[in-house]
């Protein structure tokens, strides 16, 4: 079942965000229940299952980290995904085949401030305004670093031979 395939990744992500195994278990359980309840809304052409699951886990973990009970979030990867975006499952396969070290290496190639920016956002749940305060840089700088980090990460992985399936 889906949990057998992505449960470990989901738990790893939730644990990294929350830092507490019990809380991570709660988030993973609720996330997979959400997947189960919303399965009918999943559209393979709009994104991989891995992306779908990771998005739900990440959103719920961040919500819990911020003490939110789940405010409405922009959820582009799920049932509100843009209808014109067509993604094949190739990415899922590619991602599964990627060596962890390749991704780590790509992250390590990022300038420290860029890597730190996306880590503060993705794992610590800080908004860009909060990151701006934390890093004592203008908000525009945070936005630019975030975009550049993701672009460079993608570019580096492409150089490693990753074929992107976004068409």
């Amino acid at each position, binding site marked *: *079942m889906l949990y057998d395939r992505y449960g470990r*990744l989901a*738990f790893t992500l939730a644990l990294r965000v929350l830092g507490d195994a019990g809380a991570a278990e709660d988030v*993973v359980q609720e996330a997979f229940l959400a997947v189960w309840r919303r399965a009918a809304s999943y559209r393979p052409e709009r*994104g991989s299952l*891995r992306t779908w699951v990771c998005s739900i886990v990440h*959103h719920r973990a961040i919500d819990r980290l911020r003490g939110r009970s789940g405010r409405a979030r922009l959820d582009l*990867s799920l049932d509100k995904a843009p209808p014109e975006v067509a993604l094949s499952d190739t990415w899922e396969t590619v991602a599964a085949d990627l060596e962890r070290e390749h991704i780590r290496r790509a992250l390590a190639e990022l300038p420290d401030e860029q890597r730190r920016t996306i880590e503060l*956002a993705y794992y610590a749940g800080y908004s860009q305004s909060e990151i701006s305060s934390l890093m004592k840089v203008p908000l525009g700088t945070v936005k630019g670093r975030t975009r550049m980090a993701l672009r460079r990460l993608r570019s580096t992985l492409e150089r490693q031979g990753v074929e992107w399936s976004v068409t």
Partner: protein
Amino acid sequence: MERDVTCDDCDLLLAAHAVGALDLDDERRLVVHLQGCAGCQASAAAYLHTADLLPLALEPVTPPPALRSRLLARVHAEVAGEERSRPRRAPLRERLWRTLPAGRGLTAMGAVAAMAAVVLAVWSFAIPHRQASPPGVLVSRACGLTPLPSACGELSYTPATHQSVLTVQGLPPLPVANSAPLGGYAVWLIHRNGSPVLGAYLEPAPDGRTWAAVLEGDASSYVAVATTHEPRIGSAVPTGPELLRISRPLTPPS
């Protein structure tokens, strides 16, 4: 007055959204722009997929096995509760079987079907009028022992998935201490030598009357399951009186 979001603005917002750092006001602006911009819609997917690589760089941590059992038990409890609240609805069993994928490829609906294959085993127990169990599911039933004769349960085993599902009715609500349930109903796997091994904890359905647990592993490794109330979660041995014992199913249901 707030100016319109340009595609370059949107690109910045999409990157922030992909890592979960978008401020609320920016979310609203982003949504408005995306509704009319196909180019930025495509960019949104690209950023999301890049961000979703981040957890793959983490050292994997395996979740506790009990998490899987709890998840499946919750699924069952929800299914059972849903059906109880809508007794005249078309049988979910039929709807679930219709969702089974023709191929072996994993899809979300396939995942639902995989879960459904488990909960189907207990489905007939949760509805007022029992129906035949799905093919390939072995079932045994029993009612409670002296301490709690009102409790009745059903143990369903699906050899193809090596999963057993125990459903029990007639259990009283858990005692409450400091506004929280005290302990839980433990399910013990009774091995041939009589030794009990903790298998799972029963989870209540929303109606509070049906309890369920999913047991992993080959059913041939144990001869029966027993239920006790354990005041302390995590006890390695039974401490409460045995409330119910059901032998492992051996023959297909008639």
